[in-house]
């Protein structure tokens, strides 16, 4: 089957070359051929100047990650014909949210810098080196251990797209690998650092990382685990944790989300004042949320009974900082 590939070309180092531009190649795709095999065919038979990375060809090394028809994929485990049949096109571009070095090769340095920020090594407390690790302990961090550092999640991350300083999903998932490890001795310190600006609370929960991770690491789930652990460890003095606390409180009181109370509790008095101009505009359109005027849902006692039951089981209610 002959399939037209449209490939983004760009050599930012070559001042003379035009770019970026798309060049088309026709590939005779056999059943089962992967996108990476097609690229190898193009570079071997037609255009040796096409730059791209690959190594293991078995979805293990992570180096062949690219954008295929708009979404981050490992090209070595993506078959050409089904992808083409689904999308009606074959457009290959470098990973998004990364600087292009040449053609399909991107600069991974910021990716590694974020990883380093997550301190990807165990720092056991004294004596814990020999502490037993149960199967359940291991299972908690299983998913975050599967990462092959391909960068697909960061390429799809909506928050990273807007804020390049955001810690982003790959390093967050890695952070849970250590925070969630029973042998780790510095959870609280780690959680404090992760809760700083541009940290875990800046994730917009778009789920793209989880959807496009080829190894099912589920980075968003690991971020949720970090946030939950941070709250339980009493790391509450930040807008993200305050926002969640306000929600939990609102649901327990009214059974509903109380927009006004949440704004006030998350931002505090002074920053809420900054919302006044927008508030006035909303008021004119009848959209200003009213604090505490919310009707309670029926049978709110059932909701409270559920809170109590969970609290009994897991000692909920995050500790306030003294």
């Amino acid at each position: 089957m002959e399939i037209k590939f449209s490939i983004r070309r760009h050599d930012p180092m070559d001042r003379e070359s035009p770019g970026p531009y798309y060049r088309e190649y026709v590939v005779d795709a056999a059943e089962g051929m992967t996108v990476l095999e097609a690229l190898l065919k193009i570079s071997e038979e037609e255009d040796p100047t096409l730059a791209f990375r690959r190594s293991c060809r078995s979805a293990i090394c992570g180096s062949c990650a690219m954008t295929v028809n708009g979404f981050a994929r490992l090209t070595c485990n993506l078959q050409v014909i089904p992808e083409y049949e689904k999308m009606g096109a074959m457009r290959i571009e470098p990973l998004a949210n990364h600087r292009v070095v040449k053609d399909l090769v991107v600069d991974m340095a910021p990716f590694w810098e974020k990883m380093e920020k997550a301190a990807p090594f165990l720092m056991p407390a004294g004596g814990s080196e020999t502490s037993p690790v149960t199967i359940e302990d291991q299972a908690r961090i299983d998913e975050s251990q599967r990462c092959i550092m391909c960068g697909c999640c960061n390429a799809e991350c909506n928050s990273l797209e807007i804020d390049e300083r955001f810690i982003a999903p790959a390093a967050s998932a890695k952070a849970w690998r250590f925070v969630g490890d029973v042998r780790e001795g510095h959870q609280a310190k780690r959680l404090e650092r992760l809760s700083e600006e541009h940290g875990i609370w800046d994730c917009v929960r778009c789920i793209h990382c989880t959807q496009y991770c080829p190894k099912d690491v589920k980075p968003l789930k690991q971020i949720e685990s970090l946030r939950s652990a941070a709250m339980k460890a009493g790391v509450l003095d930040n807008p993200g944790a305050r926002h969640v606390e306000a929600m939990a409180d609102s649901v327990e009181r009214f059974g509903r989300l109380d927009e006004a109370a949440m704004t006030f509790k998350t931002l505090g008095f002074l920053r809420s004042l900054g919302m006044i101009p927008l508030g006035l505009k909303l008021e004119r359109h009848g959209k200003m949320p009213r604090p505490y005027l919310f009707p309670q849902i029926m049978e709110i006692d059932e909701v409270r009974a559920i809170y109590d039951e969970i609290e009994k089981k897991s000692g909920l209610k995050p500790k306030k900082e003294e």
Partner: protein
Amino acid sequence: MAEELKYAYYPGCVSQHMTRETNDATRLIAGKLGIGLYDMPRANCCGAGLLTDYDYKLYLALNARIFAEAEAMEMDIMTICSTCLMVMSAANRDLKRDPRLLEETNQVLAAAGLHYSGKVEVKQLLWVLAGDYGLERLKEQVTRPLGRLKVAPFYGCHSLRPSDALGFDDPEKPWSLEATIRALGAEPVEYRGKTKCCGFQVDLVAEKTATKMTGVRLLDGKRNGADCFVTPCPFCHINLDNYQGLAEKSVDERIDMPVFHLSQLVGLAMGLSPKELGLSRHLVSPERVLK
């Protein structure tokens, strides 16, 4: 006669308050289409994604309480909020997938005298129209086709992902919103950002990220020729419409883009008036595109 479509109706907190125009419009169009919406007076908030950060088991139990109510009504749930859809669907997926988790959650529910056996499905208005009701049937109800209107479909994230919990549409090649726009006689606009995030989850937490994200999405649709946006999610609506002024500042460009709730666009094509559909509640007036 086709059997009446009946749903346990879960508007979500934000559509009962800040964006209540979409709740009103939904009830109006459902009435005209003959879709039965039955209120859930006991239903609690799904947690809007935030309770998962607080405690996963609490999030599961509170969502299971919603499902138990629908189960007692012997109906599936219909919501008009993509975030509620995602949050409830993910909880439902986890509970249905893992009998031990369901059992454990039921032990918590027992404290409130409740039980969920795992039978409920969760849908949103878009799926009900494009799936259960059917777009051919919807077309027959269109009395004032929205000719010439170029509409940017804004799915946002939560009506498509995680696809293993939602399932109705394809996250890489979605069709339902475009097909609905076409059924109403308007023209869908293609643009990259249609399945990306509006940023609402961090409106109060990382405001700069949120407003810029909203601005980038609006400009993306605008540059691809949209006259207006439509979204199935009230939270997306809040960012795209209410916060458009802030978004304009963050991208340093005037945008002036009307944003419809899905229910309103359907209502307009069915001949309902802007007043009935609460269009005056929008901060960016849609008047210009309705002439």
